[in-house]
């Protein structure tokens, strides 16, 4: 019953023929940032209105952002400070930096933040949850499809991306979903004409959805699908088999890598190219991280035990019960993409705030916590609320500086792009945004944004409809 009704919203539906998006068509939000608007009454929209009219162009050669409180994240917050942008990079950050003839941008009273990074999302791979034709996030197969890549399937014109961007999200990781090893993700900029132009890092990580340890206690006569019902013993056997399958798969991939190395050294015959094993190479060699998706404590512990046997870096995603293993995670320096701040308690003995407090508990133990909304389709539409997961954690004990890092620097580190993104430091990409208040406060509005030095539009389907209907003449 429960399952059935959940389909009301999420099951497939056809896209009506009358659907016409030309009415709202516009190029990716990108604008020349050489002229600056007057202050407007409506702060949240001042960017959108005028930027929409501009034609796409190249980034300004050199910009000096001044007057704003600069949340460098890496170092201390400068109130106020200046940021010099040149050639798409941050040239300097300080209380005052030499202008060097850069165009001045007055951001008095504003706050400057590094762009927010949304890891572990279906953004770009989904449009409307209930419309199957718009779903590209979940592949099928025989449990292991490491050669599936998400970056190439992102829809650059998804209406969801500008909506995310309008609240500070400048890059995101579309995650392939499905079975045990679902594939590889990429890090994408929330702006660009093509997937290639959007791509920041590809591949980013391999995704391993750890098998559940939970037994299904539903009696056979109550099972929704009696043909698929399994006894507890059978379920136990199956979950053991799945764990073995993971170990085997990585062992086989390792053997392939060694055989390939041996062939390269002339110690063995050349191998036939097997795409799946090729895809596994960076992971068995420890060059790129494996994101393990696990929520329940027994899954997490099993994943940790498995990780001991691997060379690769592990990132734990979802991680509902990670707070129960905080010390182990800290000792092994495994960062956590916490996705359950807004999840109801799972156990009837849990305190009501168990998931509100989890990031603080992890932090106190020494775990780096980044935030994720989850990889569901609806989560992608709601990704703009990512900072408020961190804010809720702050209300329940996480230091604000850590919350901010959990939206910027820590995800950048997880994604292996901390040299380019995640903080406002000289040498990093000029990917940042200005707000009229604390980004952790829902009431604050994002007003300006630059991605790799280019100012981008904050217009979206939402602002366009807002403008349109705000101006609807009152009927007679």
């Amino acid at each position, binding site marked *: 019953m*429960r399952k059935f*009704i959940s389909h009301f*919203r999420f099951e*497939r*539906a056809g896209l009506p023929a009358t659907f016409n998006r030309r009415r709202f068509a516009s190029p990716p939000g990108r604008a020349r940032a050489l002229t600056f608007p007057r202050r407007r009454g409506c702060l949240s929209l001042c960017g959108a209105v005028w930027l929409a009219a501009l034609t796409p162009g190249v980034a300004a050669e050199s910009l000096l952002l001044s007057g704003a409180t600069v949340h460098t994240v890496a170092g201390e917050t400068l109130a106020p400070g200046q940021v010099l942008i040149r050639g798409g990079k941050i040239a300097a950050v300080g209380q005052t930096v030499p202008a060097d003839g850069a165009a001045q941008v007055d951001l008095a009273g504003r706050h400057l933040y590094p762009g927010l990074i949304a890891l572990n999302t279906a953004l770009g791979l989904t449009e409307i949850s209930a419309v199957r034709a718009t779903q590209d996030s979940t592949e099928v197969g025989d449990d292991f499809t490491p050669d599936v890549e998400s970056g190439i399937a992102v829809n650059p014109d998804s209406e969801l991306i500008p909506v995310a961007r309008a609240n500070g999200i400048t890059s995101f990781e579309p995650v392939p979903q499905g079975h045990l090893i679902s594939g590889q993700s990429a890090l994408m900029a929330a702006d660009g004409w093509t997937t290639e132009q959007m791509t920041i890092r590809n591949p980013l990580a391999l995704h391993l959805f750890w098998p559940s340890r939970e037994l299904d206690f539903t009696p056979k006569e109550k099972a929704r699908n009696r043909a698929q019902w399994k006894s507890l013993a059978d379920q136990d056997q199956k979950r053991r088999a799945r764990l073995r399958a993971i170990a085997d798969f990585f062992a086989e991939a390792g053997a392939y890598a060694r055989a390939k190395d041996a062939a390269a050294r002339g110690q063995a015959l050349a191998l036939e190219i097997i795409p799946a094993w090729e895809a596994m190479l960076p992971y068995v060699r420890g060059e790129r991280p494996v994101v393990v998706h696990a929520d329940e404590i027994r899954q997490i512990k099993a994943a940790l035990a498995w990780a001991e046997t691997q060379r690769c870096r592990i990132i734990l995603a979802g991680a509902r019960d990670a707070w129960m293993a905080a010390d182990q995670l800290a000792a092994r320096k495994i960062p956590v993409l916490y996705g359950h701040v807004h999840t109801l308690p799972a156990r009837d*003995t849990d305190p009501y705030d168990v998931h509100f407090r989890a990031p603080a508990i992890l932090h106190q133990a020494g775990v780096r916590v980044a935030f994720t909304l989850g990889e569901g389709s609806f989560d992608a539409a709601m990704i703009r609320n990512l900072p408020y997961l961190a804010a809720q954690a*702050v209300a329940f004990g996480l230091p604000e500086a850590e919350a901010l890092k959990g939206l910027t620097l820590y995800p950048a580190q997880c994604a292996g792009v901390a040299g380019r993104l995640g903080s406002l430091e000289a040498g990093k990409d000029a990917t940042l945004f200005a707000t009229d208040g604390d980004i952790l406060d829902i009431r604050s509005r994002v007003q300006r944004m630059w991605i790799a030095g280019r100012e981008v539009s904050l217009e979206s389907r*939402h602002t366009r409809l807002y403008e349109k209907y705000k101006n609807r003449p009152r009927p007679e």
Partner: protein
Amino acid sequence: MSRKIASQWVCYLAVAALALGMQGHRASASQLLPPGFRPLPLGTHALTGGRIVIRPGEVLTNGTLVIREGRIAAVGKDVAPPADARVWEMKGTTIYAGFIDLYLPLEATNSAAASAPGEAAAGDGLTASGPRFFGVPGAQPDRGPAGPGYAVAGITPERQAVRSYAPKAAALAPMHALGFTAGLVAPARGIIRGTSALVALSGDAPNAVVIKPEVFQHIGFTPMESAERVYPSSLMGVIAAVRQAFFDARYYALDQADYQQNPQARPRPEFNPALAALAPAADRKQLVAVEPGSVLMADRAARIARELGLDFCLIASGQEWRRPDLAQATGAAFIVPLDFPELPSLPDEDDWEQVQLDSLRAWDWAPENAAVLRQRGLEIALTTWGLADKKKFRPNLRRALDRGLAEVDALAALTTVPAKLCGVASQLGTLEPGKLAYLTVVEGGSYFDPEAKVREVWIDGRVYPVPGEERGAAQAGASQSRTAAANKPKPAKAAADNPGERRRALQKTRLARSPLEGRGPLAEPKAILIEQATVWTCGPEDRLEDADVLFVGGKVKAVGKGLSRLSPDGDPLLVIDGRGRHVTPGLIDAHSHTAILGAVNESSLPSTAMVRIRDVVNSETANLRRQLAGGVTLVNLFHGSANPIGGQSCIIKLRDGAGPEDLVFDAAPPGIKFALGENVKQSGWGDRFVTRFPQTRMGVRTLIANRFIAAREYLARREQASGRSALPPRRDLELEALGEVLQGRRWIHCHAYRQDEILMLIRLMEGFGVRIGSFEHALEGYKVADEIARHGAAGSTFSDWWAYKFEVYDAIPYNGSLMRDRGVLVSFNSDSSELARRLYTEAAKAVKYGGMPEVEALRLVTLNPAKHLHLDARVGSLEPGKDADFALWSHSPLDSRTVCLQTWIEGKKYFDREQEAGRAAQLQAERAALLARAQKLAKLASGGGATSEEAKNSFFRVALEHEFDGCDRRELEE
């Protein structure tokens, strides 16, 4: 073949004997059987030397009991065995009145062939949704039983268990071994299931065994399970269907009588055997036995029975311990099963991790349930029903006794109480002269020693030995069970080493606490003064800095600066330091499904105006506490959005710990849920659901118009009939609810997304002279805000949801601000048990999107929903005279860093953050202790624990009350 002939003979002879019985005790010549048959024994017996329990609490040692012609002729110490009696030496035995099991489902007693057709009629009675009272028929064919009947599936009161009772010997033998001599054979599937029969468990010819052919009318609160979605598919639908059926039965009797009087002046009424069969129950001539399935539904069953004027008893769910107060309030007799959950054997030690406290509690409480009911002064009868292995009955009864059930009550529950409930107290239940000779004979001093073997039972004056010891050698191969083993004599000292005894000893005391513990008000001061806080009045005074609020007697007394610390009536005053704190009215969630028992939708028919959420309020869900922790005090519970015309809604206050009816907040005209668009045209239901009308937005309007025209007609006919002697129209619960809408006594709250459908409903209802209460979600409300405002409906919306289905692709977070700018009364709701915990930060989104002033933003979750629910005279703002519903916050309620510190309802504290950590620790400690005991017991049992599927099922059965606790419930419905 020969057996059949014999039984026909016996049957004939029994009738003859009965006819002759009055004339004397002489053995009748008609006991002569044709040659070839074994002759029948004579009918006079004297049982001497036994310990005779005449009735619970009255024992005769070394007495004699005389049986003549199937009846007890005499009983006493000085009774001499009659000369013609066969004398039975009963020394060393205890003789009880024969036990009666009050709930034997037909399928359990009948032989397979006999039970199939009888039970199928109720279980699979997929009578197509007739067009009578619930809207429009689906396109499914009528798969119900052929012939006349009631139009709703599962309502088959005309079924008589007695007509299909065909006992199988295999079902009787285990009952004899437990001491049972008579049983109530009941139809156990369907909703209004039919009548039960009291039968002797003798395996005699069917005609001979029936003691009373129709005893109870049986009702089960079991939704119809069918892939085709047959009405009623939900718990609330079942209750609506039951109510309607009884109203129909009353009407049917009047209608038939009217026809008898003027057969030529009126149309011929239809024949309905179901409604005719309900008449005895409706007229209080027959007890109704309700199987409600949970203690909350026991409460509801009692209320419905009182509304309908029925006499009733209840079949216990086994979980009355959850709310003994509600069980007690029913005042009903309970038929109590002893099917306790058994510990599972789990594949892996760490699988215990998955076991929730509630499962452990249910396991630990189960043996105490009978005692809990008895201690509350309720009459109980025991039943073997529910036991997959009937041999567990006596050990489980022993556990119930260990947990406080008195032996005298247990005996009454097997004898006098069931006899009384069946109305056969003059025939059965005690060992008094004149009663039927039904005896249960136990070796040793007490039935309640599970090791004491039932030697034999006597039924209608004939003995039925229980095979066992004397024939033990022959039977040994067939029965290796523990009971058989236990019957062998063994040294007394072995008992302590007996794993069974050790298990029993470990379970004698209860570790589990009551789920009611720690709930209810934490503090109830007469008066409260909050000093120097930021007060968000949400009234005309907006927000006051450094202000005080005085609450007296559950109401707001005053708001302002520098209020006196002297309580007006001299009552003790609780002073709360509000410095740095914020006070707001209790938050209101205008759209929720969070505390609904069972399904949120009656998703079978397109109009389900007859179902009421109030019937299925779940007072036990953990959601109440979790939302109190988010400052919420009042919630509007809606039926889901599966149908254009949904069910009647119910407003509750989160007075956690109170029973369902005491949560209800009745201060306003009630509402009804309507819905438009993708959900009701079944866009997302899958490929099978393409036949129910409507499948398009065009059809939605057609359907709603159709039902309102029908309702208008209904009102008109009722009006015409009033004051005249003519038969009034049949009461129709669907049209009655819609009629209330037409009369302005019930508000429509309509789930709607697209602007066209919003406009459609506005114009349609204006045509009926109806003002709509609110559009729910109204995510395109901003496109027709002027029209909504002009009509006068409110817009209860999400702060920022969008893109989850096609009709919300144009949803924008500016919706609230835009609607408000055009004069619509706007509120934000959760539609989610999770989101409901943080409505305050949802309100903040209105500041972000569209720049709503902060005091206005907070009104989105306080005063505005109070207004559109028409409750603003009582709640929604901190103004003198309103209810003292408020929350105390660490920061501004719109600040993401804020934490709710306390939540109060009507001057009583229901949440205090400082006590929460302690509460969780206590629950965790309780679970740890229970788990330790469970694991120890599981090890004691051979092989770890119960291995049968049934045992596992019972342990992991999630209580109906907690089925959705961990679920968002937002997916269920919008």
